[in-house]
């Protein structure tokens, strides 16, 4: 019986000793745990903030602009004023089932810096399948009816020169695409400016019109 009591007392001492050691260890490790709890969320937060700008590019590649509406992009105001399928230049033989689509846009740079930034703007066209067409080769479209409108984001200067669009001036520009006939009704015009976010401004189409115009606007160019 005495032996059992002695064993019990010995066990109690061991338990107290163990608890004391654990408490001591807990006190020693507490600062590390607190540091860990503080630093892990901090590291995640810093990494998230550093990566967020990079992740936003591909996820927000375009901003769609409704028909007949304008939008701010790269420091300028943009509007798709007219689109229409039209004839090519006189001596160009187009492939079967292809057509030239003309687009007229209006761009108004907010200030001189924006005018400089958009000077090398880029036009393209896309369809529902994500296919992309660049502007047609210079010898393909017939811009004769465009009243000397520029084919880029600048103001013509003399016969062959070009200068920046004056801040606040609404400049009409024209462009053209060579596309298969069957995509004309599904074509959307895009504007891109280097290093601008979003990557593209995309003018949405209107399926409710007669289908002659792209983007649903009344064909007005070329006449």
């Amino acid at each position, binding site marked *: 019986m005495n032996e059992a009591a002695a064993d019990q007392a010995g066990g109690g001492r061991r338990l107290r000793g163990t608890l004391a050691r654990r408490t001591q260890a807990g006190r020693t490790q507490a600062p590390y745990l607190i540091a860990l709890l503080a630093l892990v969320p901090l590291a995640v937060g810093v990494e998230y903030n550093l990566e967020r700008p990079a992740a936003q590019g591909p996820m927000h590649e375009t901003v769609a602009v409704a028909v007949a509406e304008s939008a701010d992009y790269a420091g300028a105001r943009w509007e798709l004023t007219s689109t229409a399928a039209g004839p090519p230049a006189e001596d160009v*033989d187009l492939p079967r089932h*292809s057509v030239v689509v003309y687009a007229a846009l209006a761009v108004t740079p907010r200030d001189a810096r924006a005018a400089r930034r958009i000077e090398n703007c880029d036009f393209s066209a896309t369809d529902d399948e994500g*296919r*992309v*067409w*660049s502007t047609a080769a210079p010898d393909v479209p017939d811009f004769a009816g465009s009243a000397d409108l520029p084919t880029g984001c600048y103001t013509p200067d003399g016969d062959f020169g070009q200068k920046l669009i004056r801040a606040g001036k609404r400049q009409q520009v024209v462009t053209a695409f060579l*596309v*298969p006939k069957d*995509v004309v009704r599904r074509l959307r015009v895009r504007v891109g400016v280097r290093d601008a976010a979003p990557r593209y401004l995309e003018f949405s189409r209107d399926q409710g019109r007669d289908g002659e115009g792209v983007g649903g606007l009344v064909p007005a160019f070329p006449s």
Partner: protein
Amino acid sequence: MTLRRTGAVAACVLLLAAIVGMHRLVPSPTEQMGPISTHGQVGERIDTGGFTITVSKVRLARTLVEQGFSPGPPVRTDGIWVVLTATLTGEWKAAAHGDTFLEAADGTKYYVSERSDSSSQLTEDLSTEPGVPRRGRIVFEIPPEQLTGAVVRIGRSETLGGGRLAPQAVVDLRLDAARARAMIDDAAPKLSIGAVEYGP
């Protein structure tokens, strides 16, 4: 006990052999990321999924004569000019097809000739657009003896990614020794090549 040990050793050997065998089945980096080939022949429409090409004609010549606004002097060769006439249609966006070469039977690659004016070379510019066919020439300069068994590989070149997993058409020119010899004997002394055009 001996039988058990023998069985264990045999199992180990089999497993090692299996590991070696499986390791050899792992695709090489080229196989994993190389071009995706679609095979066809002259006169056949080859749809690679990334572009479509039809090589309609193969001609040989000793001298090339460029046409156009400012043609240079005729270009002679000590070998032979191989001139393919083809129609190329893009599928996704404006692209060049600069990863194009003639592959001889011994594996030697001859890339599109830089001695021929690039404006007359179908694969050398960025103007191949989705759904709009363009017709032009693809020109190689090769030793005549390399013609037998040659194939032409036309690959879309990527600005980014170095053409990894890019679509590639492999056109068998169907030139056995007799046919190659006959074509070389009949090679045109002079061949005029025009600029790339749209169509058909």
